[in-house]
């Protein structure tokens, strides 16, 4: 359960921030997940609800903002849009493409009371 570890990572960041801000409740947690990251958003959502039980973030709404993928094609020498990490370049068909965005997994912000 890889997403479980990630959900725990999210909770740690949320709890640290909530404590620092002297919050009493976390209402919303906003994540930025790249389309080409190794995260399955639905599984993460499920795990998030489980790990937040009994924490300050219990019942918090999880918003997942998907970030589009792009990569640098070494053959075309330009940035191209990617749907999957190991996709060929849409222009030239080469697999010499280095992912430049869409692999992120970040906690962007939280809404607290």
């Amino acid at each position, binding site marked *: 359960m*890889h997403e479980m*570890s990630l959900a725990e990572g999210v909770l740690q960041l949320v709890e640290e921030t909530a404590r620092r801000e002297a919050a009493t409740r976390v*209402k919303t947690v*906003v994540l930025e997940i790249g389309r080409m990251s190794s995260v399955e958003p*639905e599984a993460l959502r499920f795990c998030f609800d489980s790990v937040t039980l009994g924490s300050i973030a219990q019942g918090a709404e999880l918003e997942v903002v998907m970030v589009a993928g792009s990569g640098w094609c070494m053959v075309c020498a330009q940035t191209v*849009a990617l749907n999957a990490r190991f996709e060929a370049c849409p222009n030239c068909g080469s697999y010499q493409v280095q992912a430049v965005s869409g692999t992120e997994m970040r*906690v*962007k912000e939280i809404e607290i009371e």
Partner: protein
Amino acid sequence: MCTVCGCGAGETRIEGDGHAHPHVHEDGTVHSHAHAHGGDHQHPHDALPVAAHEHRHHHADGSVHAHSHGHQGEHAHPHEPPAAADLDYGNSPARAHVPGLSPSRMVQIEQDILAKNNAYAIANRAHFDELGIFALNLVSSPGSGKTTLLVKTIEQLKATRAISVVEGDQQTSNDAERIRATGVAALQINTGKGCHLDAHMVGQAIERLRPADESLFLIENVGNLVCPAAFDLGERHKVAILSVTEGEDKPLKYPDMFAAADVMLLNKCDLLPHLDFDVDLAEANARQVNPHLTIFRVSARSGEGLSAWVAWIQAGLEAQRDKRAATVAGLKARIAELERKLAAQ
């Protein structure tokens, strides 16, 4: 679910389930995502819109865009409730918040979810570099022959270098016992329910094993081709092991792992005469995912190809030692310079 436009399912794709719709966004990007339906309805969407209608979307940053959505033929469309199909963050309490009017507030975090693991990994790597230790993280599916390969590798190297091994498994200490039988130090980590080793576990293993200066540190990760790819342990290289009794397309099925690795060992090559495994195809698939991959064809059982792999480790050990020597020499020069300055005062 796609939270850009509020439709579609996650990235888990089950063959035969749902279908995909392409969307064009305002900035010109096109994406397509799967779209599963709970209710039964016909859905003869054609490529060309006949009777198009529009949906407006509000984005988290307040921008609004619309895109058209074509239909051909009659079909019921019980996307329930219609209003819920549009994710309107602009109306949500989180976005409509005005400071001072409500007790809730947004706090920016902007941190990587794996930040904690990565911090431990950086500390482990710094420790390895400081002591000139060459650390490898061996990853594969269960049963690819990782432990046998480690035992054979250790037998060839233990005379020249100190070696310590971390064994990751959900349960049992069988693997650590097999390694200890070769005479080198080994520590078993049982992850219990966990599917991977993390950098904190490895940090604790370093404290227990206390690897010698300029030694070889081998980490045998939990047999799993998915999760260990995302967790940096502080190693110099990830080494993926693929055995020829698996499919040639494994690098394509589990691309994250082969992309994260620098080296791939194609193990059990002694069995090739008895199999239909296409070695060249397997290597081509792996290079499609990771063009920079170094590949060795080996057999831990017969010993074929192991000398090239062992030579690669020795080169790594030497590079790590040279790097440390350069650092130490640099520091010594700096101390000598400071002492000279002090003496001159």
